[in-house]
């Protein structure tokens, strides 16, 4: 027994030593990817990583890396478990093969939360596009958290803006009944403060109906909807509960074209199993579906047709979750590019990574160059604003594919910003953080 313990420790030491001394000469930027191709959420994970990896591969093989620096991306399976993501983080935070890590994709809100303080202490940016902790948009309090692109509050606001455009203006919102059917979890409830705020502002009635995980039986909820007769329903569910939600809505005669799903309730795997019931269903799309964007043409030519894609089944090329992967990868690549401009073309560490993300700007021109027009919104991230976008398009399911209904709809940032700052300030107080003053950062 004793011998075993000692032997294990010694073996472990040897193992550690070998991994640490592996020093490669060529310059690569190490990017660890905690993934979930297995388990309850694998159906989105599988496509997600196909997209991310395909784009990184494209950068490496077609563009020769970023300014000559190749990307060394490595996958770690977590089954979407925050604990295992923490473990992966601990494993990789020191970097690999001589490269530090410039940022850490958490690939899930719970994992972001679990790592928030650790990463701040380690000075490693946590990247969680369209997720994360909403108030961490305020980079003064959360220098190392990046809920890029589309926060939960922006989701609420964009949705309301879309409804306003459908009913003919914000003043028409008054008196409307807008129900939110949400997955009863932190994710599901994350928009509540924003919706409440907007309900007050516009005078609509805010109805919140929870669905317990996993949500495979929702008759009571939709019977309530049937009774309350709301004008619009936000569907803020996740996984099975979306499919069942859409189907149950149809069963209770609630029209699909008055249901708006949120980001994580708007992929093919959410609507295909729902069959005909999903026709007309719309969803917020910071990551629109479709394979007709410029980048898809490039990928098809260089990656898919060359047989290098990670996609098991090519029919998912251009699927929403695949595009999520593309967009996230592109954000990372563009941030690194920004950083290399300042620090030189070499692997960045966490602090440099933060600088890079805080100065990431992707305008229309750049979008055109990288082939993401229409797929990715223009983005400008600053130390004050770690979201940088906050817009989404609306897409509707026609039974076969997602059809884009609108261009980018912006969230009402002016209304939301005070709420965010207030919560960030509360966090700062609770954790004894003195907010940075961005002016001190003169770059």
């Amino acid at each position, binding site marked *: 027994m004793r011998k075993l313990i000692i032997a294990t420790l010694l073996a*472990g030491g040897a193992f550690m030593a070998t991994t640490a001394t592996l020093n490669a000469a060529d310059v690569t930027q190490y990017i660890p990817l905690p993934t979930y191709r297995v388990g309850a959420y694998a159906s989105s994970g599988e496509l997600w990583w196909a997209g991310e990896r395909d784009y990184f591969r494209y950068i490496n093989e077609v563009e020769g890396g970023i300014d000559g620096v190749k990307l060394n991306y490595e996958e770690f399976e977590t089954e979407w478990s925050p604990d295992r993501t923490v473990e992966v983080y601990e494993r990789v935070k020191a970097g690999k093969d001589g490269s530090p890590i410039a940022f850490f994709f958490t690939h899930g809100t719970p994992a972001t939360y679990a790592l928030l303080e650790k990463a701040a202490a380690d000075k490693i940016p946590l990247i969680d596009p369209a997720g994360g*902790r909403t108030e961490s948009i305020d980079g003064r309090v959360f220098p190392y958290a990046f809920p890029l692109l589309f926060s939960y509050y922006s989701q609420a606001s964009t949705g309301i803006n879309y409804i306003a455009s459908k009913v003919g203006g914000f003043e028409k919102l008054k008196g409307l009944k807008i129900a939110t059917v949400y997955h009863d979890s932190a994710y599901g409830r994350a928009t509540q403060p924003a919706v409440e705020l907007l309900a007050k502002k516009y005078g609509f009635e805010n109805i919140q109906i929870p669905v317990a995980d996993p949500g495979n039986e929702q008759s009571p909820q939709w019977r309530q909807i049937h009774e309350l007769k709301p004008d619009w329903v936000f569907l803020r569910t996740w996984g099975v509960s979306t499919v069942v939600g859409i189907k149950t809505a149809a069963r209770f005669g609630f029209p699909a074209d008055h249901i708006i799903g949120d980001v994580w309730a708007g992929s093919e795997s959410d609507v295909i199993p729902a069959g005909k019931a999903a026709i007309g269903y719309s969803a917020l799309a910071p990551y629109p579906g479709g394979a007709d964007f410029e980048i898809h043409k490039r990928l098809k030519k260089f990656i898919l047709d060359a047989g290098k894609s990670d996609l098991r089944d090519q029919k998912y090329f251009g699927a929403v979750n695949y595009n999520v992967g593309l967009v996230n990868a592109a954000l990372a690549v563009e941030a690194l590019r920004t950083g290399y401009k300042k620090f030189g073309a070499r692997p960045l560490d966490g602090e440099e990574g933060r600088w890079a993300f805080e100065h990431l700007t992707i305008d229309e021109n750049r979008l055109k160059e990288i082939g993401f027009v229409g797929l990715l919104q223009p983005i400008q991230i600053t130390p004050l604003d770690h979201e940088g976008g906050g817009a989404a398009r609306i897409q509707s399911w026609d039974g076969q594919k997602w059809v884009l209904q609108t261009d980018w709809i912006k969230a009402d940032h002016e209304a939301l910003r005070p709420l965010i700052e207030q919560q960030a300030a509360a966090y700062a107080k609770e954790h004894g953080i003195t907010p940075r003053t961005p002016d001190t950062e003169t770059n």
Partner: protein
Amino acid sequence: MSEIELRLTGGIGEGVSTRKLTGIAVAALVVSLPFLATEYWINAIIVPFLILSLAGVGLNLLTGYAGQLSLGAGAFMMVGAYATFAFQLRLPELPLPFALIASGIVAGAVGFAFGFPSTRIKGFYLIVSTLAAQFFFEWLFLKFPWFYNGDPSATISLPAGLWAFGIDLNSPHGRYYLTLASVALLTWLSYNLVRSQTGRNWMAIRDMDTAAAVIGVPILRAKLQAFAVSSFILGIAGALWAFGYLGSASVQSFGLTRSYQILFIIIIGGMGTIRGAYLGAAFVSLLPLALDWLFQQLLGGHADAGLLQNIQKVIFGILILWFLIKEPEGLARLLRRQSGNFNTRRFPRLKIRRQT
């Protein structure tokens, strides 16, 4: 410390002095570990291993010793974590160690309540009660903002980090020693308990409850005690898991998979042995790493990570079956057999007593 190690690892038939020496050596190793291992090993492997071991000890008291199958280990860990959060948040003047103990007591009380059906329900009907605890607390701690202080994502993390009596424990070393101290202390207490009359009562109930009742074992009380003590330990393990290891936690950190993981730890390590919990936890935390490493070596990183994960799942299932079929008493027994001690199973105590 050395005494604990001595008992943990003490075999029969070795001389006192060598035993003492090895005991001291192991203790020294354990204490100086932070200076030998990399931060990665401490943060990502050793600390969670210790906490899982503790959780295994806790569940083992209930399932391995008292024979009450529980699928709700995660629930009691969850209660401990959320209680610690509540104490630290609302009673900041209460030092962390006391907050941990108080949380253990809260978890113990909850365990007591959910153990109550065991006085009437037997066998695996009882898993209903523990599963009910699992689902109920997942719901409760998500539902009411009071429990997570209104945090928008319903996550809890200690407002001031880990501090005990003015000492900053937030560093990897600090967390290691906090964990080590709690785990060692609770293991020692568990060890005393399983050798006490209460421990004998538990095992008597496990082995043959009707006979136990007839010879005067207070079945009701002993069962409830088992639930309470087990949950007490699980509660502290949960608090350590949340704040000593993860740094923050949500109900997902203590879901059904966590309950299964703890159960597998004691199946693989050995039901009804304290040492088994450690062996099982070591196995459970090292196997995925070992398999990962093996596949990397074999396939040079070209394998589909998802497929590997599925293979790992299958291997895990096969191992559980293998242990149940071939070695129902787990790794603890397997190792004992290697060292040739057959008959003197769990009770090397008397001899140690006489020697000391």
